[in-house]
């Protein structure tokens, strides 16, 4: 018997039942697709929409941010930071990410996003603790609602989704904004996080800072997509493409995404096109993989210059304002420099204190061992001071 016969439809009867309903797209893809061109305000007819108050606020943050970046880089040269991944050139992304959030919202930064944390109000010394090297995280994430700066790429994204989901389950009106680089979008964790977010309709905003490079690898070797924002439709969330150096444009797009998430509208993927003006970190040599011309081209599209130009066209860039902003930035930098020039307090016993809620017996043994070693070291050092300086027992060994 043929299958048709089994199903009771006779041979030559031309009967084609309608396919089951799993057929039609479950949501309309059109509104999820990004525009062909990144969204811009500055330098376009729509620039006038931007309130002068916001423009001035952004300006202050951007200038402070640039100064902060310069200061942090200087601190690497003075040996006060182990390493610094600068966000110079990306200040609009950093600042907008911070400003669009309410106090109760959460920020999930990557290693490059200390400025976003600072713009959110975190003490810069706390933000830089990881990079100074006295501890991994220099602040209480719950107090500031800033997750630890995250180094393993894209791994912070599922955290943001889980946290936002948990907040929603608890009935709290909290949005999470998570930052990731263009390179980070290639990681499996990016994919899994966006998928969970969309399935759960979690209140998360994903901000991809597409700065053109993952260390030395240019975007063209990272992705063949029309844009990274085009990934959104594959999860069923809107993708937005925006000029990442146009602070008011980014502020608007992110604000909309945050509001949408808050309203229960689910996650959004925002791709901000920007450029990293410095090397990957102070330890990197960018001349190996990109030309000065390319960097110069982007200097012409500087996020601070764009806002300055608009302020200036509106006649708002007074010497007074410029001075005041500059002073604020210098003050931040001076305070940072002074405080980072002090050696941080270190307690080797911290090594054992936070591995578990209660140290295991092993850890207590090891703590005692280190304590004894340090005591012996100190005794030797004391003895050596008495004897003279050629005793090496207490010398630091890596």
């Amino acid at each position, binding site marked *: 018997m043929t299958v048709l016969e089994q199903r009771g439809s006779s041979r030559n009867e031309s009967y084609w039942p309608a396919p089951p309903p799993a057929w039609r797209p479950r949501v309309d893809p059109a509104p999820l697709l990004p525009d062909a061109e990144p969204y811009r305000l500055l330098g376009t007819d729509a620039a006038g929409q931007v309130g002068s108050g916001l423009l001035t606020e952004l300006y202050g943050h951007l200038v402070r941010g640039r100064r902060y970046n310069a200061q942090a880089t200087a601190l690497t040269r003075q040996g006060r930071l182990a390493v610094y991944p600068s966000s110079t050139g990306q200040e609009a992304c950093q600042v907008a990410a911070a400003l669009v959030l309410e106090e109760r919202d959460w920020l999930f930064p990557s290693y490059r996003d200390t400025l976003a944390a600072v713009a959110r109000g975190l003490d810069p010394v706390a933000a830089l603790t990881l990079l100074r090297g006295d501890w991994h995280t220099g602040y209480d*994430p719950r*107090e500031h609602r800033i997750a*630890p700066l995250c180094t393993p790429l894209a*791994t912070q994204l599922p*955290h943001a989704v889980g*946290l*936002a989901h948990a907040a929603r389950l608890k009935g709290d009106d909290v949005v999470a904004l998570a930052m990731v680089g263009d390179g980070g979008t290639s990681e499996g964790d990016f994919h*899994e996080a966006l998928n969970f977010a969309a399935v759960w309709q979690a209140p998360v905003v994903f901000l991809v800072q597409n700065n053109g490079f993952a260390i030395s690898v240019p975007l063209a070797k990272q992705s063949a997509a029309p844009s990274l924002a085009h990934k959104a439709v594959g999860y069923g969330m809107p993708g937005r493409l925006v000029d990442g150096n146009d602070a008011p444009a980014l502020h608007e797009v992110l604000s909309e995404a945050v509001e949408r998430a808050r309203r229960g509208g689910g996650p959004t993927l925002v791709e901000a096109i920007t450029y990293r003006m410095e090397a990957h970190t102070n330890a990197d040599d960018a001349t190996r993989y990109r030309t000065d011309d390319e960097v110069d081209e982007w200097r012409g599209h500087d996020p601070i210059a764009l806002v300055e130009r608009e302020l200036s066209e509106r006649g708002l860039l007074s010497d007074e304002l410029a001075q005041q902003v500059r002073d604020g930035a210098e003050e931040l930098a001076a305070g940072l420099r002074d405080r980072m020039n002090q050696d941080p307090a270190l307690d080797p016993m911290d090594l054992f204190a936070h591995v578990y809620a209660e140290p295991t*017996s092993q850890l207590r043994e090891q703590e005692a061992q280190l304590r004894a070693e340090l005591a012996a070291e100190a005794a030797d050092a004391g003895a050596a001071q008495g004897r003279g300086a050629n005793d090496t027992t207490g010398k630091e060994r890596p």
Partner: protein
Amino acid sequence: MTATATEAGRKPVSMAQALNRALRDAMADDPAVHVMGEDVGELGGVFRITDGLVKEFGEERCGDTPLAEAGILGTAVGMAMYGLRPVVEMQFDAFAYPGFEQLISHVARMRNRTRGAMPLPLTIRVPYGGGIGGVEHHSDSSEAYYLATPGLQVVTPATVADAYGLLRAAIASDDPVVFLEPKRLYWSRADWSPDAPAPVAPLGRAEIRRPGSSATLITYGPSLPVCMEAAEAATAEGWDLEVLDLRSLQPFDDETVCASVRRTGRAVVVHEASGFGGPGGEIAARVTERCFHHLEAPVLRVAGFDIPYPPPMLERHHLPGVDRILDTVGRLQWEADWTEGSGD
């Protein structure tokens, strides 16, 4: 299976049921407890450990996730950051591997990197081990990976009562626990009720399952019933074996283990995981460090071979069985005329 064979028919509660009950009670006691994973909802998990939870607590408390283990662990981290107590199911041992970056770099370290500000009360249930006739990737004993990761607690029950008690303790712990469930014991049964006294077993305490004087079998999880059987069989050879169930591999109960070995003077570590680089090395080494002059013989190991887990038709050759354990006990230098090399 050994355990099923020896305990079957006796009394009604299976390890799977005890685990299910532990989840249910934990969820009822604390609204912060959320169960999540692949197929944990309507299906109740492929082993039915989460059976009925979605009906009782709703999808928000016991939800199917998309099929992505790093995503499951990663989102559970975020949920724990917000104060929930996620209980995550990895469907099988080998399917936890996609989540290893989240596990090693985040789950194990979050408390430490935030100086204690952000503990992660997260339980990761992993059905593990072989002996169930599973095809490749369904029978791994992956505990060595977890043991090498400071910041994780690693717990594995071998009895029905412990399945309940240790899972309750794991969920109550403010630190992440990898909770290894011996698949082949899911259907082992025992006379047990959660209303018995002290149903919540403390983490980090080993338990002597059979006192003895000749030598100590140090084991855990799926190998406990095999060791018990071996100890019975050993009486015929005149050996009175003590059987020690570690229950918790991290924290490790040096005290109980060393007290036993000092008493018996001989020890064999038994586990299914491959020997090389497996838990037995650590256990043997630390027992030897601490009990050297009480040892009449080196601490020996009976472990899975140093091979990928075999196909089902060959697995019986791989798994530590009674004969192999007794052979090894026999090599603990009982004779006076012992010569070097016989310990190999």
